[in-house]
């Protein structure tokens, strides 16, 4: 088993353990609800907990047998490239995730139009070293799109917490 597969297997085990804890929490806390509200959560939670144990057992057996991670064509979801499964790939992906989260924080603080005007050039210039012209062109295009959505489809743009404090 290579390093990436081992990392993936460990993360999967951690995820199943977390799901197991969540299902127990659901079963436990559902006791306080009325019968009609607790019946389904308790059954679903119990089935989930049992399936989690089954999956954990399966993983344990596989590791004891030192069997390679089950490979095959993933027909259920979009798969990752080999390089993306490595620690470096995960780190790079997390870096981009933090950019996206930063955009979210900017939107919450400054509102959608201003946040977009700051985020897009910053991402393109600092992360991708893109020229200014396409960066500014994209901002202009996005502003036009937002305006069109607001006018034509009555879409409301998120307004930031600090928007009211601006003098403009």
């Amino acid at each position, binding site marked *: 088993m290579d390093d990436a597969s081992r990392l993936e297997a460990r993360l999967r085990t951690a995820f199943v353990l977390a799901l197991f804890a969540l299902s127990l929490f659901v079963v436990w806390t559902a006791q306080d609800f009325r019968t009609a509200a607790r019946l389904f959560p308790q059954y679903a939670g119990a089935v989930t907990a049992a399936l989690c144990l089954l999956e954990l057992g399966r993983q344990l057996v596989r590791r004891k047998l030192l069997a390679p991670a089950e490979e*095959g064509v993933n*027909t259920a979801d979009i798969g990752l490239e080999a390089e993306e499964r490595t620690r470096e790939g995960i780190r790079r992906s997390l870096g981009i995730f933090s950019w996206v989260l930063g955009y979210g924080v900017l939107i919450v603080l400054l509102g959608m139009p201003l946040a977009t005007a700051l985020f897009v050039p910053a991402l393109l210039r600092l992360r991708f070293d893109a020229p200014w012209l396409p960066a500014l062109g994209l901002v202009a295009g996005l502003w036009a799109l937002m305006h069109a959505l607001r006018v034509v489809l009555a879409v409301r743009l998120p307004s930031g917490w600090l928007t009211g404090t601006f003098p403009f």
Partner: protein
Amino acid sequence: MLDAFLSALVILMDPFRLGMLFAGVSIGIVVGILPGLGGLMGMALVLPFLFGMDAYAGIAMLIGIAAAVPSSDTFPSVLMGIPGSSGSQATVMDGYPMAKQGQAARALGAAFSASLIGGLIGAAALSALVPFARPIVLLFGAPELLMLTILGLCMVGVLSGNRPLLGILGACLGLMLGMIGGAPAAPEYRWAYGILYLYDGLSLVIVALGLFAIPEIIDLLARGGSIARRGAGLGSGWLDGVRDVLRNKYLVVRHSLIGVLIGAIPGMGSSIIDWLNYGLVVSRAKDKSRFGKGDVRGVIAPEAANNAKEGGVLMPTLLFGVPGSSAMALLLGALLIFGVQPGPALLRDNLELVFVIIWSLALANVFGTVICLILSKPISKLTFVPFQFVAPVVLAIVILGAFQQTRHMGDLIALAALGMLGWIMKRIGMPRPPLLVGFILAGLAERYLWMSYNIYDWEWLTRPLVLIIAALCLVLIFGGTLMKARMQRSAQQVEQGDG
């Protein structure tokens, strides 16, 4: 019945509705071409904008997206060897070798023609079933409908390839997320902890966008460069492809019907249909030597079945309210947005809407094929645009779409949290579509469980149809996994080839 059939066509011929259908097809073509942005994301993107829209127009738009993606996802499969969506994986096997041999145009021509015929057969099969649907659905009471929702969950688990247990666990997680907020059978708020935002539960749109759109955008950005890293010219010879289809007309019809049948089983969906049909066409062919090296039959069979299955997946979706695929789960959500209850009541109260859906499916296939053929060259260039220039636009639309749910900052927080969940699930190889289907089915399953328990106590478990469906669940969990493994093995054998 005939009145409803004809008046549905008149309804759809309204210029605005036809325009919305056309817009849906256009969106479907774009998202189908960009790997990672499948029909599910396309439908999730437009879902927030459906509020207040005419129901027929909104549904036509969604059907347009659903019908166009199985055609347009052929572009990256053939031109770049990258499946545009899970439904076009098998097309890569022979389509990409054809492109490498300079026969891309022939492969695309064959794929689009087969898709068109398959799509029309799917629509015809769906409309043929409607007259018989009423007596069938009357057999289904709350216990049987509960079992069908469980069947849907089981089948989605099967879609998880050789990890069915992980898929079912994903569906269970979806069920638990779906329990947050007001209980459907009692005046009780569950796990809302006094947070007003959670009282109504999580929004389907935000769950879909968070799970699918955010992780894809992040991964495509992290990968850097354009979506397509290599490509081949389109070449010429579209008509050769069309002629190939005409020469193999029985093959097209046979695999279209198989596509409809498999599609009608909830959860089987696109992920298995292309492999199944590819395996079948290989196993039944007298001369197998060209498969995996550029045999046009390896393109025709999965493509015909892939489009025909849209008619099939609509059957359980419309007739029983059980989504036939994750994209159909979104369609169910859209029907609920328009105040339409899917399932038996739909046939009784909204027969015209059912036929509007069928007409939309047929017309969308025609529009989709024509547009794909006309716009092949310019559209294929989109995949060569560096993704950093596409990502801000997609990200902004995703955020705007999510924010329209309650217009509360909680939408953005939920989007980020679910984006993180989707990203983690993708990293650890846990399929995400089951989670979405579990989330959708949570309310239905809980309602039917409570009704069954209230009306029959636990005796509902002894009803014959319940037992049959329960047995079907077990058979399909194990049988589906084995069947898929066999088909993949057969495909891999062909790939490794005779040398």
